[in-house]
């Protein structure tokens, strides 16, 4: 495999990890906003507790994606941030408010030091961020970013406000809600577990509906991407994603909660991998190839080696983190949210 494909694979892996971990945290914001019923306060509380120690680590995946992107594919980084100036700025503002509001809320939780309104800010920002990021990814795949001789010629609005891009935004948002609900089923007990199960079922139906209807939208609005879907590897990965998605539905239906997080994460990983397989060998559809925008071999080698060494440090550290903070919550009622 050429080095640049390996580096592109690393960026895709980063994106998958960010979706699997960071995406679930955005989903936590979605379910904080949609908390309902007699246990609404406990639902928010359980999400807050589950996210508290890990959200910042989960956020770092995004930083790794950005640095890997500008190290390995500097011209593509420049083109993407020029072409997608508006959605990326909105996503960035969302990231800042999401993170700060969560940290402020968590800091003040259970003490008198809290600030009012932080849960609301956290929730709204948790919706806006994945939505605009998904729209930006949709613009990359949809083939509406125009680049001539290395200069972005498309405007600041069109590429990401196309129907296909909007569909991708909705899919990204649904993925977040889907993951969070599935992950929470193993952390909750009793009636709250049922509530997260219902939310998970709802989200998986919605995800299935959105991804299915994205296909005709792609045919109509994202022709280059539609053409790439015929690639056999892409078809195989997408078929696996469909199977995994149906499995995750069955898992939750039958209340096999232990399996819920891995099948949900697997579904999302396969959906994103399917998108990546379809994109290959293009970085930005329809014209910019991975090989056109890759940095030199010395840079790619240095990057890949450092990431491999980093993985040796990070994987056990991450395991320690998640094992230390994986316990069930939702037992006795805790005081409500402001």
């Amino acid at each position, binding site marked *: 495999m050429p080095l640049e494909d390996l580096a592109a694979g690393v960026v895709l892996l980063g994106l998958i990890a960010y979706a699997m971990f960071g995406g679930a945290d955005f989903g936590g914001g979605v379910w904080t906003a949609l908390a309902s019923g007699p246990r609404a306060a406990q639902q928010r509380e359980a999400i807050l507790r589950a996210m*508290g*120690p890990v959200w*910042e*680590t989960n956020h*770092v995946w995004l*930083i*790794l994606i*950005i*640095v*890997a992107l*500008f*190290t*390995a*594919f*500097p*011209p593509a*980084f*420049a*083109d993407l*941030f*020029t072409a997608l*100036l508006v959605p*990326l*700025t909105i996503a960035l*503002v969302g*990231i*800042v*408010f999401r*993170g*700060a509001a969560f*940290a*402020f809320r*968590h*800091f*003040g*939780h259970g*003490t*008198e*030091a*809290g*600030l009012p309104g932080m849960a609301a800010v956290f929730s709204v920002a948790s919706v806006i961020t994945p939505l605009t990021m998904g729209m930006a990814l949709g613009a990359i795949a949809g083939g509406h970013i125009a680049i001539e001789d290395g*200069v*972005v010629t498309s405007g*600041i609005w069109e590429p990401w406000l196309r129907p296909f891009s909007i569909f991708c935004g909705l899919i990204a948002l649904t993925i977040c809600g889907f993951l969070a609900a599935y992950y929470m089923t193993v952390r909750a007990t009793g009636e709250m577990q049922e509530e997260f199960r219902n939310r998970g079922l709802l989200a998986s139906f919605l995800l299935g509906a959105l991804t299915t209807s994205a296909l005709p939208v792609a045919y109509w609005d994202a022709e280059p991407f539609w053409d790439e879907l015929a690639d056999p590897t892409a078809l195989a990965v997408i078929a696996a994603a469909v199977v995994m998605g149906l499995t995750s539905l069955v898992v939750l239906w039958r209340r096999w909660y232990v399996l819920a997080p891995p099948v949900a994460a697997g579904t999302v990983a396969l959906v994103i991998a399917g998108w990546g397989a379809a994109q290959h060998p293009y970085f930005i559809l329809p014209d910019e190839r991975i090989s056109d925008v890759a*940095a*030199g071999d*010395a*840079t790619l080698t*240095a*990057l890949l080696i*450092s*990431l491999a060494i*980093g993985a040796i*440090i*990070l994987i056990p*550290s991450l395991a*320690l*983190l998640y094992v*230390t*903070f994986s316990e069930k919550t939702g037992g006795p009622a805790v005081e409500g949210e402001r």
Partner: protein
Amino acid sequence: MFDTVTSARTLMGVSLGFHICFAAIGIGLPLLLLIAEGIALRTGDETYRQMAKRWARIAAVLFAVGAVSGTILSFEFGLLWPTWMDFSGGIIGFPFAVEGIAFFTEAIFLALYIYGWDRLSPVAHWLCTIPLVVSSAASAFFVISVNGWMNQPEGFAVVNGKAVNVDPVAAMFNAAMPYEVTHGALASYVATGFAVAGIYAIAMLRGDRSEYVRKALVLGLAVAAVFTPLQIISGDLSARFLAHNQPEKFAAMEGQFETEEGAPLRIGGFPDTEDRTTRYAIEIPNLGSFLAFEDFDAEVRGLNSFPQDEIPDARLVHYPFQAMVGIGFFMLFVVAWFFGLAWWRKRIDPGRLLLLAIAATLPLGFIAINAGWFVTEFGRQPWIIYQLMRTSEGATPRDGIGFILLVFILVYIALTAGLALLLLRERRRPLELGAPPGEAPHAS
């Protein structure tokens, strides 16, 4: 509204000025946690344990603000400076990638530290501070090495406007790196030490002379006392490096317009860029030449000897340089006063004036860090990559950056206001002193 380049520069400057404070705390505070909890483990002194607990709680929120403000910067590379990144990404992306790994490690162990009081054994918990200290210092190394490269670009050749023969490791180990990295990392320990001391000096001024406050004050000042003299030496070495390798930046720092043998050291003064002279400075004869070249009669190049479209604005460099150096020596004076007095009286009993001076250092460290940042950034202008790419050439071709600037100024105001409110409320929380170890209520 500003034009694109001015808006982009302003936004980048505001973003870095904001982030750099949290980055400094993120580097300095782990060291204080390591020492405080280490003392608690060794002596069983509950005061130090409470100290570490309270600082860790605050570290959680400061680190979060540091993480989001750092994310802003990584996006701004693309949003504001895509042309620069197109050229540089393949050269200086590598240290950023390694920094990403270091930051990842830091986030993981910070979470284990902050939320692991009841879940890890006391020793395992304390051990978490070691990867924190190491990875935060490593982050400083990798990030600042990039700024070193912008000042002393190495590790590539340019063919048809593209970088070729890239050696990312050579780029990282550029000539400016050792000086900038040392100065930046030491600054973090100094500023954090004084910030902590300043907080407890204010508490003492308000009449709280408890054992907890006294011990915390001494710990903060002790860290500051170790690192302040080292920082002054590192500053001297950096200035000497600049005199040799970036003479226009050095000339701007010193307000040196005419090339001069036996140049004076100017303290204060107002560089007049119209009349090309620095007025009303206290001039110490020949000392400028000596500090730059270890020779009282050495020639120091003045700004007039460079092409006039390739020099920085002396005012933007000289004033912050004076501020930084002035603060550095004031800090040295404060720790000498404090520990001198303690040694003389054989007890820790600072008077009101000394406490006021320590309280003043609470913001001064961060002001000095930003002033130093102004010196290095304004001093490199008009270049974004020294003598290779102008700042104006690196900016985005997009319009509307002025609007984004406005949006982010509001974001920073909101963040600052939220954080200030939160910390003011935290101050009113009582300590949990006296609770037996392991049974203190969990902070979350």
